[in-house]
């Protein structure tokens, strides 16, 4: 091979790798980051960041299973991550490229290892609980001043829901979270995969169904903040964001978030790199950027979700680290439960039950 050809090949090779390195595509949940961080990442690395959002694990999972999503970093929740790892959708992380991984919090790492053994495929981005968001004034107006705002009775007892219906109640459109919650309420194992046990939730949910205005997993943030609805069963940080949006708008709406007194679901959103990511190098750079204590703290301070980054805790604002709705105290922590993915047959039962509850058929 002549020197000329060699140089040409080298130039072409450099050219292509440079072209690949220019972009990192991230697919994350909606309302889930401080957008200043995205600019900061671009400035620090010189990479172009393409940041898209979704609002349901199902949408992400379908893209992962179809393959060729074109994303370099995606953020599935624990149970979904576990199943997608089994399907071969992710690549193992290269520890050498994640110099900040020492910042991770062992308490959370131990729990996420249940979904991702040895945490080989993912890092924790944020975690939270599924609980209840209330418009304090409207709920007290409907149910009296001494109502327990953190009880599942509020949303699962028909006589309460009847009174709340006129001011509007939304539930998450996520059977994998609502069904465990109802199981917990009726004293069954929230992580049950037994069809008959799962079937018991039908009666409870159908009892309150006529009073639920909508099942949706992102609309409730604005709906709560605007005062369109008065109760939402939703994700901790989303409801806290609604609280802040209402406060900013100064519209007289006061929102509170509570994990359920009966016990709440604890979930983990994990950052992982798809097996066919076009730019795994850039993906690792993004993960390492997120693992930085300051950056992670900035994200949590902005979206009001707890993170799995021990080192970031000293940079967290007092209304984040000090809020038991975000960083639960030990008593609440004892009360939290986790779930595991449903096998395909059980999944079908769950989806069918969910359709029946939502649409009445």
């Amino acid at each position, binding site marked *: 091979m002549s020197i000329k050809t060699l140089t040409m090949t080298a130039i072409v090779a450099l050219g292509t790798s440079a072209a690949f390195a220019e972009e990192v595509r991230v697919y994350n949940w909606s309302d889930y980051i401080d957008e200043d961080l995205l600019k900061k990442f671009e400035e620090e690395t010189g990479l172009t960041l393409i940041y898209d959002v979704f609002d349901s694990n199902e949408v992400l999972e379908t893209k*992962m299973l179809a393959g060729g999503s074109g994303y370099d970093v995606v953020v599935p929740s624990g149970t979904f991550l576990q199943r997608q790892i089994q399907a071969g959708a992710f690549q193992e992380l290269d520890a050498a490229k994640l110099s900040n991984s020492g910042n991770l919090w062992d308490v959370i790492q131990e729990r996420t290892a249940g979904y991702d053994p040895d945490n080989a495929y993912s890092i924790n981005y944020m975690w939270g609980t599924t609980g209840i968001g209330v418009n304090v004034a409207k709920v007290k107006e409907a149910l009296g001043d001494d109502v327990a705002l953190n009880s599942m009775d509020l949303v699962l007892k028909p006589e309460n829901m009847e009174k709340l219906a006129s001011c509007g109640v939304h539930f998450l459109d996520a059977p994998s979270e609502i069904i465990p919650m109802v199981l917990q309420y009726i004293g069954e194992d929230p992580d049950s995969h037994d069809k008959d046990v799962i079937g018991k939730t039908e009666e409870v949910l159908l009892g309150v169904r006529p009073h639920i205005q909508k099942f949706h997993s992102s609309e409730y943030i604005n709906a709560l903040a*605007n005062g*369109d609805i008065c109760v939402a069963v939703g994700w901790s940080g989303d409801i806290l964001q609604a609280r802040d949006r209402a406060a900013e708008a100064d519209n007289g709406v006061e929102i509170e978030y509570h994990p359920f007194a009966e016990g709440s679901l604890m979930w983990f959103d994990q950052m992982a790199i798809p097996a066919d990511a076009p730019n795994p190098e850039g993906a690792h750079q993004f993960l390492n950027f997120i693992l930085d204590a300051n950056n992670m703290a900035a994200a949590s301070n902005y979206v009001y979700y707890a993170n799995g980054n021990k080192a970031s805790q000293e940079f967290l604002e007092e209304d984040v680290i000090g809020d038991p709705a975000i960083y639960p105290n030990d008593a609440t922590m004892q009360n939290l439960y986790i779930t595991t993915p449903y096998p395909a047959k059980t999944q079908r039962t769950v*989806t069918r039950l969910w359709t029946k509850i939502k649409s009445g058929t």
Partner: protein
Amino acid sequence: MGRPGLAVMDGHGCGFAGELMRRALLIAIPYVWLLALFLVPFFIVLKISLSDVELAIPPYTPTLDLSQGWAGITDFFSQLDFENFVWLTEDDLYWKAYLSSVKIALISTVLTLLVGYPIAYGMARAPTEWRPTLMMLVILPFWTSFLIRVYAWMGILSNEGYLNQILLWLGIISTPLTILNTNTAVYIGIVYTYLPFMILPIYSSLERMDESLIEAAEDLGCSRLKAFWLVTIPLSRPGIIAGCFLVMIPVIGEFVIPSLLGGSGTLMIGKVLWEEFFSNRDWPVASAVAVVLLLILVIPIVLFQRNQQKQTEAGQ
């Protein structure tokens, strides 16, 4: 589809072979179009509908393995079956969803016709110099994204939305009406979105109408209303039919409007399809639902066209 070719037959000056080529090309274009954009995708969906679910990428099996040659192909076909179609008949969810979609589509088509016809009539009767402006006004909403327009309706129809605020201010109602997240909102959204598809074909058939026909009818003793009923309506029939098809067919499979404006109780086949595909990760059943939906749409259209053809032949 052979008709364009016939017209070319009496052309002069070209060689016979060239003539044949042109004919073949003219006939081929629509067939290639149909093959590439309808039949190929349809067979891909049909193939998936005969497969089984698997936790893999892609999430179904079998996949065609050409490296094993003929054995691979026969092996592939032997694994296909109609299990998923049988499944559709075992659960009443599916036919209920089909029926409910057809019902919503029929009602909204009638509503769109009732709103669209007077508008199209008004446009066709307007002074000639106004017509391009009116036409522009009908098309103008397309310049904004469809999604944004549906979102705008959420702002109008919500409990704290503009409509309720105006009605409360006028004193017509004392508590806000719940419109958003109900079927009413779905109908409003559909009629609004699909209105131009109804107006444009009706307008084009009305515009071409010879107005002296109405004068003749009136000279012969028809009242204005009767002339409208006996002359205008039958002459605009092709436009009405085209408009109804353009509205009804996409509405049956509609997903965005019911999921944004409808409540969780709004049962439509588009949503069922979404759930099979996304929640159950069951692409084969989702594809079976899609194949049946296609048959539901195609069969009445074919029957209708046959009927039309017979009528024209009988007329001649």
